[in-house]
């Protein structure tokens, strides 16, 4: 099975407001999908539903064949998720935090130690392993969140703004890491930084007002317009304009 993520008519309504409107797409092994959109377009909501945090209002998604609504625990086992802002428990040490995530994921003893050590190696956290997370800089905190998502070497990775708050060197390292893992995983990353899409993604989806407006490889997008920035502005602003016209 090469389609590791299958999203089927996923919809989320908050009261009368539709945050995610009937989105469908699939992501295959080896793909890095860049999830783009203006703030409030429904990126985080889609990712939260995919990760099983929010139940969808209608529609569903499958991760490695496990339905997020019917088999939430099985779906979560196959998934590494970095929530928006990379939340962590501030009073815990880096090792303590990663061991907690590892234990919940069913690792114990030397297997747990190996997993934690490997995740810290990938995200270059060894230097701060015994520091409480609250004493770390923003870049380190983000990498702790990332290490937690990579810990169990999941086939599917969903990363909400993985490079936000990192300096240029750290951004480069995280992109390298994503590129290295790409061949054997299906990865979805959301970002505001359009150059990042060109740098790591094999495919880009732009959503606006809860709908998919574009689904194409970044190279194709760049050929159409002059730069990704222009394409992004044209698509998301025109979409907003059409909706306003409809309403009036």
């Amino acid at each position, binding site marked *: 099975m090469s389609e590791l993520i299958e999203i089927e008519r996923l919809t989320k309504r908050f009261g009368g407001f539709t945050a995610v409107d009937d989105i469908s797409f699939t992501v295959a092994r080896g793909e890095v999908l860049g999830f783009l959109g203006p703030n409030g377009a429904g990126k985080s909501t889609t990712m*939260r539903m995919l990760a*099983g945090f929010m139940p969808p209002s209608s529609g569903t998604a499958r991760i490695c064949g496990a339905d997020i609504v019917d088999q939430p*625990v099985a779906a979560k086992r196959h998934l590494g998720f970095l929530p928006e*802002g990379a939340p962590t428990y501030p009073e815990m040490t880096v090792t303590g935090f990663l061991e907690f995530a590892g234990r919940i994921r069913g690792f114990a003893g030397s297997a747990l130690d190996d997993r934690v050590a490997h995740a810290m190696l990938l995200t270059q956290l060894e230097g701060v392993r015994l520091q409480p997370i609250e004493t770390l800089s923003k870049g380190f905190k983000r990498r702790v969140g990332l290490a937690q998502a990579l810990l169990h070497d999941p086939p599917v990775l969903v990363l909400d703004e993985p490079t936000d708050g990192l300096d240029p060197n750290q951004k480069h390292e995280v992109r390298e890491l994503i590129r290295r893992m790409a061949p054997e995983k299906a990865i979805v990353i959301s970002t505001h930084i359009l150059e990042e899409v060109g740098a790591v993604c094999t495919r880009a989806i732009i959503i606006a007002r809860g709908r998919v407006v574009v689904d194409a490889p970044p190279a194709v997008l760049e050929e159409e317009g002059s730069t990704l920035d222009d394409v992004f502005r044209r698509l998301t602003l025109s979409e907003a304009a059409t909706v306003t016209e409809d309403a009036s």
Partner: protein
Amino acid sequence: MAPALIVARRELAGYFATPVAYVFIVIFLVLAGALTFTLGNFFERGQADLQPFFAFVPWLFLFLVPALTMRLWAEERRLGTIELLLTLPLPQWQAVLGKFLAAWAFCAIALLLTFPLVVTVNLLGQPDNGVILSGYLGCLLVAGAYLAVGAAVSAMTKNQVIAFVLAVALCFVFGAAGSPVVTEFLSTRLPVLADIARGISVAERFGGFTRGLVAARDLVFFASFIGFFLFLNAVVLDHRKAD
């Protein structure tokens, strides 16, 4: 290890990593001791038992337990870690249970630290240690009942002050429902409600334990009381996760 126990272990370590645990324990011990010896007339009554102590513990828990539970889910929401915890592969009820167990174990530790009182009465006389033991069991069950109420309230609101005030009020209702003031008032006007009030009263059940009575129906009461509010907690959490 069951996921609930892994969550509980992390939570409990979290209490002791912050001043919360120490402030709670110190205040609890100071108040419990002071009230027992002053208002409780521990020496003057000339009896080797812990009745004065057991009389005050539920009232202390009424204020201290909501202080413990108000941050239970509110803190996870504030930090955003709720999104992390609930996207780890564990059933949601295990997370609810884990948090409750940690808080309960913490209350048990606070209660255990009142052991000098037990030593004192044993040095001064020959108390019935069975009654003392069942009294402690009752205290622990009252703590569990208040914790379950407080945890469910904490899942409802992001605001810690609201969570605290609501939890105190609700715990007070369950604590005071069986007191003579309430039941006498109700029995003269609405006799049906008086029975219900006695039936749901935590204090009424606790009274048996302080007299050395460990009745199966009281244990069932506390188990179903705690179970009900944990279930409510899970349901509320499911509907208001992202708020």
